[in-house]
């Protein structure tokens, strides 16, 4: 089975990276419009099942099939407050050096222009979920800024503030960072294949720690990639049909390139 597989696409590497970040979690919640995080969570669940470890519970908000909550939309927040949600994903129109997130808009609040939808649950979940994974595929200086225009939710809190949760990792289309709470800043953990430190430094509007020669984000082993392309792809197709089709097309393109 492994011989005839085409190599992992960049998206597949992102999905596998997400799955790795969920190691040891019991319960993960994913926002409705987050197919890559959802795929990563589904992959983590499938890997868990294949090794016989305790199952990973996934709740995809707004989904009827992949949502086990029965107490209305408040239940995610309650469960998070109870410490039952180990990981959650947040994006952001802007994310700054200190891990502050802006989901509200640019310019002087309240008359933001452009105005973005709003802060959703970030003003709570970022504080109480232990592993908040910041996921934003676009890696550019307009997203990763030195200081956000509006703090929907801050990356760190003053000592004495109740804050069991916070940023755990930042995953972009170019790199993976982790977050140092004490230094209040990000540290480059690895560059995705075919991306360079110089490119990432230029695309990031804030300073970050890094090794002189950063590691490369590892790709999946053959078994993981197989699981992703079979069971997880089927699960994805149910909830995110357009995304699953796109993912499949990406694999085929890579395949054609490989055989040229």
């Amino acid at each position, binding site marked *: 089975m492994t011989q005839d597989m085409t190599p992992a696409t960049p998206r597949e590497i992102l999905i596998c990276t997400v799955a790795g970040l969920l190691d040891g979690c019991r319960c993960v919640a994913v926002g409705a419009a987050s197919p890559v995080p959802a795929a990563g969570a589904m992959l983590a669940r499938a890997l868990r099942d294949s090794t016989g470890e305790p199952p990973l519970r996934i709740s995809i908000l707004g989904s*009827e099939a992949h949502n086990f909550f029965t107490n209305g939309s408040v239940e995610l927040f309650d469960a998070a407050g109870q410490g039952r949600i180990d990981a959650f994903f947040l994006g952001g129109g802007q994310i700054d050096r200190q891990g502050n997130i802006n989901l509200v808009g640019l310019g002087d609040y309240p008359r933001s222009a452009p105005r973005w939808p709003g802060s*959703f649950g970030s*003003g*709570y979940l970022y504080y109480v979920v232990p592993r908040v994974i910041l996921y934003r595929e676009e890696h550019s200086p307009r997203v990763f800024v030195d200081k956000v225009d509006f703090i929907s939710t801050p990356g760190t809190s003053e000592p004495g503030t109740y804050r069991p949760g916070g940023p755990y990792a930042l995953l972009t289309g170019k790199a993976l960072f982790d977050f140092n709470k004490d230094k209040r800043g990000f540290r480059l953990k690895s560059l995705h294949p075919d991306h360079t430190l110089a490119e990432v430094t230029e695309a990031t509007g804030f300073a970050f720690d890094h090794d002189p020669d950063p590691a490369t984000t590892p790709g999946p082993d053959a078994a993981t990639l197989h699981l992703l392309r079979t069971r997880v792809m089927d699960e994805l197709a149910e909830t995110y049909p357009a995304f699953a089709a796109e993912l499949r097309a990406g694999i085929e393109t890579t395949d054609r390139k490989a055989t040229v």
Partner: protein
Amino acid sequence: MATDVHRLAAQIAPGSSVAIPVDYAGVSMAFTRALIEIGTRDLTLICVPTGGMQADMLIGAGQVRAIETSAVSLGEAGGAPRFNAAVKEGSIALRDATCPAIHAGLLAAQKGVPFMPMRGLIGSDLLRNRPDWTVIDNPTSDTPDPIVLIPAIHPDVAIFHAPMADREGNVWIGRRRELAAMAYAARRTFVTVERMSETRLLDDEKMAAGTLPGLYVTDVAVAENGAWPYGLWGAYPVDQAEMARYARAARSDDGFADYIAARAAEVVS
């Protein structure tokens, strides 16, 4: 049946605060259209906990004075154009929140208490812009422990759409318990439903578990496809093409006006 929805909408006084549910919980778009035809003004919308096309249309129609919400968007169809324009123009008062803060405010009203404590928020610009949210030092802690108090939210009216109601006004809401939370907190609750149940919902233990008692329901009207173009859980999906059509039209004032006029013409014809 359109008349029935109008009977309900006519009971909303100008200046009312109106609680409306999240996209997927049961949005009464039939009620929205009736409110726009009647032209009820100066509404304060309370999105539980986020808003979409319903809020955007009422804002576009100039009927909204203020909005409390955790977000407004059209989901896959993109941002909410009339909301975004109104924010830019400064023509509506904004009370930006985070989802659980809205739930907390409604819960305080449900419990008959003046406030609910809530974790999070400290250090955010949400808190900085909400003078009605108070930070205190947790009185039950021996060490300093700042915590936010969210005041009770008492909507004048709650409005939503559900699959069915019975003759006593009991409404089947399934596991969409935010609809119950809205009704508990609101002074009056108006519900549109796909159909009336001929049997009493509370008589069947399975149905009873997902039923909002008539005690909280002021009036009910039948409105088939009443959530359209939103979907209704267990009944019909979102009409994404119509959502996209609206999203395109509402980019401009004129486009929005045309869209509303065309919809109104359809109803009349």
